[in-house]
């Protein structure tokens, strides 16, 4: 009795979870494996369309005789690169039709014209013509005839399904001169974006954790950049930073802080002089990182605020009794209490920033030294139309992420053991 109950429970559980699991598997897990497959292939964007045999039907009358008709089929292979094998053709005709000349490849039975065209190479074109006449001499309705569409079938190789593999893509990705630069850019973007958003998160959480008038409103406002659509925000920033008539540049010029406008999103380097040392700052990258921090510090803020509100008040009261200063309270009570949250946040934000595509894409499109790995996936796959390369870059991303997660959990595991 008990056993059957457990069994029905199991069964129910599988029925309930199956749809969700199947969908997630098909759309998330399967593509990750498919990426591995595609990354070892030489596939371009134009290869992925399956070649189709196509026919355009043109109905022509022969002289004045309305009972006779000529039909021209413009046949072609839709693909410019792949052949189609065993093309078969089928078209229906009214019951009073008789065929005049029959192509040897075809047969006309039960008012259906069936043809076997054999193999069509790439770019294949043929004008295929048949003539009919009605056996009762009645008038032919050309429109009705035209509305019947011929059916064509054929088999072709799906370039994605064959087993030709190559290491070319990975060689190209990894041995590319810019690969190191690409990695560095991605790392800068991810690391500084993450650290910056966490620092701002701590500051704002500390701030909102105090009592002041309009505190709930402030909490909502702080989350605005995080919940608003990225498209709207990115274009607003672009407008704000525009070198020609952007608000920021106009303001700076108005207050005579700068003389010529700075193209914050379009200039790769800017020379900065700090204490007599000249160094080059990657300007566009810095701007993009600023946007990143601006948009994502609210998440850090929210996590840290939730943690701060859970810290027992007695700890601070005890510290007051001991005469601790605000800084001492912050470093000795608050900070240790929020380190766990910060380390989780660091991981989440690091992973998400590492894969962030939209923000950079919308702001700079990857130009002026802001090309990160995700942008590269898009550029390889869609701008250069090399699907195989795009997949290879995706695989590099996944591999780096797995490596990061592995080291992160190893480090975290150690720290947990020590405590």
């Amino acid at each position: 009795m008990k056993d059957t109950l457990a069994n029905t429970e199991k069964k129910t559980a599988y029925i309930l979870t199956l749809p969700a699991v199947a969908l997630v598997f098909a759309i998330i897990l399967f593509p990750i494996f498919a990426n591995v497959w595609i990354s070892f292939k030489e596939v371009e964007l134009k290869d992925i369309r399956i070649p189709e045999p196509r026919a355009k039907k043109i109905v022509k009358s022969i002289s004045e005789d309305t009972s006779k008709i000529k039909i021209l089929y413009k046949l072609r292979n839709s693909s410019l690169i792949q052949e189609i094998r065993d093309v078969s053709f089928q078209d229906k005709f009214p019951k009073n039709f008789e065929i005049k000349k029959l192509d040897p490849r075809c047969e006309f039975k039960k008012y259906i014209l069936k043809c076997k065209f054999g193999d069509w190479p790439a770019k294949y074109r043929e004008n295929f013509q048949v003539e009919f006449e009605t056996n009762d001499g009645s008038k032919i309705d050309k429109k009705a005839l035209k509305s019947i569409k011929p059916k064509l079938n054929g088999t072709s190789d799906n370039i994605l399904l064959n087993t030709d593999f190559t290491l070319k893509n990975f060689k190209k990705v990894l041995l590319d001169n810019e690969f190191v630069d690409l990695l560095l850019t991605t790392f800068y973007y991810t690391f500084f974006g993450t650290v910056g958003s966490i620092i701002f998160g701590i500051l704002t959480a500390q701030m909102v954790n105090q009592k002041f008038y309009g505190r709930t409103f402030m909490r909502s406002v702080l989350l605005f950049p995080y919940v608003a659509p990225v498209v709207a925000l990115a274009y607003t920033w672009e407008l704000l930073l525009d070198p020609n008539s952007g608000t920021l540049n106009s303001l700076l010029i108005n207050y005579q802080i700068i003389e010529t406008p700075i193209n914050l999103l379009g200039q790769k380097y800017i020379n900065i002089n700090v204490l007599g040392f000249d160094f080059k700052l990657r300007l566009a990258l810095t701007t993009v990182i600023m946007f990143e921090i601006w948009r994502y510090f609210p998440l850090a803020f929210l996590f840290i605020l939730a943690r701060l509100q859970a810290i027992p008040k007695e700890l601070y009261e005890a510290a007051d009794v001991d005469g601790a200063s605000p800084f001492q309270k912050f470093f000795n009570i608050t900070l240790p209490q929020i380190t766990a949250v910060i380390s989780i946040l660091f991981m989440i934000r690091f992973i998400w920033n590492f894969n962030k595509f939209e923000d950079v894409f919308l702001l700079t499109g990857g130009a002026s030294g802001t090309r990160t790995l995700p942008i590269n996936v898009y550029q390889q796959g869609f701008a250069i139309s090399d699907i195989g390369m795009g997949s290879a870059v995706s695989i590099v991303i996944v591999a780096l992420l797995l490596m990061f997660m592995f080291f992160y959990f190893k480090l975290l595991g150690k720290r947990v053991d020590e405590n």
Partner: protein
Amino acid sequence: MKTKNLILFTLISSSFLIFIVSIWKILATLQGLNIQNFNLQIIFIFGVLISFANLRIGNKIKDFYKSILFSLIFVICDGYLIQKLPLWYNIGIFLILYFFVSKINKYGFENLREQHLTQVIFFDFLTLFGILFFSFVILFPFYMMLITSFKTQIALLVNPLDFSINFSQDLKSLFKSYFVIFESYNFGRYILTSAIVSVGTVLITLIFAIPAAYAIARLNFFGKTFMSTSILIIYMFPAIVLVIPLYTIFSQLGLRNSIEGLLIVYTATTLPVAIYMLQGYFKSIPKELEEAAILDKLGWFGIITKIIIPLSIPAISSVALYVFMIAWNEFLFSLMFLDNPNSFTLSRAIQYLSGDAETPRQYLMAGSVIVTLPVLFIFVYFEKYLVSGLTAGSVKG
């Protein structure tokens, strides 16, 4: 100790004064006032003097009169003697000064002897500074988005600093950009597509997620722990690596440029969060209720529809709002899958609009306002539900 605290106090408070007056000056410049410099030194000197005088006077005059007095002195010096500016500007300055003096009123000479006073002052002013700074930095782009959508191309080019809106014109010319994007750029259609996709995603996600979350929360089955841990790991997985395989598969199946295709992808990407959030809530529902239901011979379908769903309306609605916001804001997949303007979502349409360098930017901003408003409205209105969910790590970004 006392002098050190005194100096620090005056320094910090006058820097704070500089900061708030500067923000006000920037905002005034953006209303078309010709302000060319911040007069930092003068304001700093005033700040030091006011802070010091405030300490000196202490409680001899009532705080209220003290604040009014200092504010008036400052306004007269700054607004009329140094530069002549309109009344509304000076009223703003007056209010700022009143605020400032009322903030420093709580410090007196006797406080300066207190332990850690410098740090207390530092923290106090840092908080004030932070509140103003972050409000400004966050709200400014939104403010600019809204104002720009009401301006004309020429006005924007002539004086990019003039953010004032001419309310004397009739409504039709004020909202011209909005009329144009609806009439010539087909925004009505994009709003509809976005709404259908977002609401559709919410419904399908809930239909898939509620049973799965119930099973994970309540039933015992092989692979349960594996499933609940893998949910989060799957959630961490980047969308960008899914793009190429999904693009190829969808191309071959003819699902690109279709609402169905978007619905499938959005549902799959939001399912892990939805399941994670729901199962957490379902676990908190007392088991006795279901045991009673089992005695009444209700099947799992009955338990879910008659007990679980009615009891978890708050959690379900917060999940629904989230999924709606994620689907509404989504950009990457709509960029990849949609290239026919007939099937564009709002985000994709705005991006497409910006691709044409000729598009006047007030149209772009009007589109941005339209795509942003529903989300901000939902967020502000349902903030309580949403914040608790956000902390559960839900909205992906």
